[in-house]
């Protein structure tokens, strides 16, 4: 089987999976070939941004315990680099990767052959150009004081158009699907691709173009941020989980019939949880209380996804099979993180607990649990499955795959646990009326730096492997087509 493929290698014991469909055939399926261009473009861009983000994360982490580090030039101020790192991570890495992943999933699930896929690539080009220009403005000029809306408002129309070009496909693919059956993943992708542009546009209008009065800006921003985190990043990653888990385990989902309820309740409640992250702020109490109620209601979709995913993993030694499958190892890790992140969201919506940890590293840990330990790990898992199918090649090095998993897993566990523990203890010390200056933990910043370096190592391992494959494959793709 592997003799046909010049790039394939023998399957050794414990070799990471993710080989192309057709067990080693260099041919790439027609559906995959139709979408390969844009998906490879989005993944390659995402990877480059991920490396930039990791380097910046190391610098900002070091700056937290050595404030004088790289402090000679005003463009390296912590406040600027922190904002740039965040935007690179969310708009550069996560969004690029998820647009690509969503495109591939739609094509695969719907057996949908893309025509004019260059439109998606054009959208990707505009997206990345707009991001680069926006980041240059933050570095050299100014920024807005709202997380993920820091970029100057002028880039928003470009982002919006780019997203429409790259992600209008869900609706097209859905409307033209050859089969009448619709998969859960398709609902999630459709929902995520609809919510992001609408919410982004409204937030831009109400916060930056025609700013609303005073603290209403913070309310709109909180609403936008939770929609972005849960309904764009989260829902897109859930779509991938709904695809890969049953596919790779070769089984059906436990309680599949519940997934409709899980989908609708997630979308119904997330829009309201923004104010639960603004407790104690100068917003009216009824708004804050609404947020708390909505956050607690997230238990409903969480229960359903837990039944779907953990029920499936608990059957037929699913956990151990997942552990031995590269894609599922990342996905299962992400699922545990998603469950923990949502549980923390529910529990720490309680006023007394929220008051204790708000403004400390705790909330940063919560966000990292959702956006890295869940979303990014699922993206990694998906990449291990998809890229071989798009390139007809194997992952060049199994060792690098292991290095990638272990360094990222250790880094994110260390970083999240550190944030939660140090955030909690700082909150408790503040509540006991200790002076603020005495409550910071120098160990927290050291741990953060160590984890940032570990992240960088993992991401480098992934990037070397992925770029090795993407560059070796373009020739093999052509050979495959000519054959």
């Amino acid at each position, binding site marked *: 089987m592997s003799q046909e493929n010049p790039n394939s290698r023998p399957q050794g014991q414990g070799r990471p999976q993710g080989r192309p469909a057709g067990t080693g055939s260099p041919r790439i399926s027609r559906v995959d070939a139709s979408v390969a261009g844009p998906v490879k473009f989005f993944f390659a861009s995402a990877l480059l941004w991920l490396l930039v983000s990791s380097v910046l994360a190391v610098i900002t982490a070091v700056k937290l315990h050595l404030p004088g580090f790289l402090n000679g030039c005003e463009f390296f*101020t912590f406040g600027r680099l922190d904002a740039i790192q965040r935007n690179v991570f969310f708009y550069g890495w996560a969004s690029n990767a998820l647009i690509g992943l969503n495109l591939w999933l739609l094509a695969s699930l719907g057996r949908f052959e893309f025509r004019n896929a260059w439109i998606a690539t054009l959208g990707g080009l505009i997206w990345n150009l707009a991001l680069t220009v926006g980041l240059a403005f933050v570095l050299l000029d100014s920024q807005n004081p709202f997380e993920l809306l820091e970029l100057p408002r002028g880039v928003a129309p470009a982002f919006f158009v780019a997203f429409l070009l790259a992600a209008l496909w869900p609706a097209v693919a859905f409307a033209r699907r050859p089969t009448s059956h619709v998969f859960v993943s398709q609902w999630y992708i459709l929902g995520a691709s609809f919510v992001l542009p609408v919410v982004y546009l409204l937030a831009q209008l109400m916060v930056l173009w025609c700013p609303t009065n005073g603290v209403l800006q913070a309310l709109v921003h909180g609403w936008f941020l939770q929609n972005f985190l849960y309904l764009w990043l989260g829902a897109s990653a859930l779509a991938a989980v709904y695809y890969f888990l049953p596919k790779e385990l070769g089984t059906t989902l436990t309680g599949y019939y519940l997934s409709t309820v899980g989908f609708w309740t997630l979308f119904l409640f997330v829009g309201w949880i923004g104010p639960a992250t603004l407790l104690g702020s100068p917003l009216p109490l009824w708004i804050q209380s609404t947020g708390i109620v909505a956050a607690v209601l997230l238990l409903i979709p969480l229960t359903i996804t837990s039944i779907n995913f953990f029920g499936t993993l608990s059957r037929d030694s699913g956990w151990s099979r997942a552990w031995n499958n590269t894609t599922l190892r990342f996905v299962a890790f992400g699922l545990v993180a998603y469950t923990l992140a949502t549980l923390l969201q529910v529990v720490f919506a309680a006023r007394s607990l929220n008051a204790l940890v708000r403004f400390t590293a705790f909330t940063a840990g919560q966000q990292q649990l959702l956006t890295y330990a869940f979303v990014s790990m699922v993206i990694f898992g998906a990449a291990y499955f998809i890229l071989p199918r798009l390139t007809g090649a194997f992952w060049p090095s199994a060792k690098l795959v292991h290095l990638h998993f272990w360094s990222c897993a250790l880094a994110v566990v260390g970083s999240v646990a550190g944030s939660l523990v140090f955030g909690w203890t700082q909150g408790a010390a503040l509540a006991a009326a200790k002076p603020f200056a005495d409550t910071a933990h120098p160990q927290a910043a050291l741990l953060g730096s160590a984890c940032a370096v570990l992240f960088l190592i993992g991401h480098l391992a992934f990037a070397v492997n992925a770029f090795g494959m993407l560059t070796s494959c373009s020739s093999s793709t052509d050979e495959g087509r000519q054959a």
Partner: protein
Amino acid sequence: MNNLNLILAGVFFTVAAPFGGLLLGGYAQLGALGRAPAEEGGPLFPALEPGLAIQGRQVYLQLGCVACHTQQVRPAGQGSDIAQGWGARPSVARDYVLQPQVALGNRRVGPDLANYGARAKSDAEIAAHLSAPAAGSAMPAYAFLFSPAKDGSLQPNERGVALIAYLKSLRQDYSSPEAKLKQ
């Protein structure tokens, strides 16, 4: 769930409902909020900012100070902000009605600044903190906001002066109809 229009309509509703309920509801309550006197006939608060402070706000935003500093004092019972001495009273929505961009912030690596102007003793003290933060502080020195004077000492340059004026203008130490100062 095979109907595209039905799913899109449903998702549209899930976005529209909180938009209407939270954002438009909040807008109905606070959209027209303006300055007000604490007592009838008294001066209007929050006070208008001096022009230099408005320029200083731009420096504050440029440098991303919001990454480490919040500007909101929570009520007693929800955090220890008042016990920490960060405010004389909780922040209320009216305190922010003059701000073109509200930098409430979300993370406190450094202390809250909502009422910093009331506790900073002098321009010189703020300048000293910006040019050479105390040992152990996570804040870097902002050398580019200072230039050497003729006598060799470091003096804040134009941007530095503006930033100091802005920091001094951050005050929530007046009574407002929603939050009276306790005497």
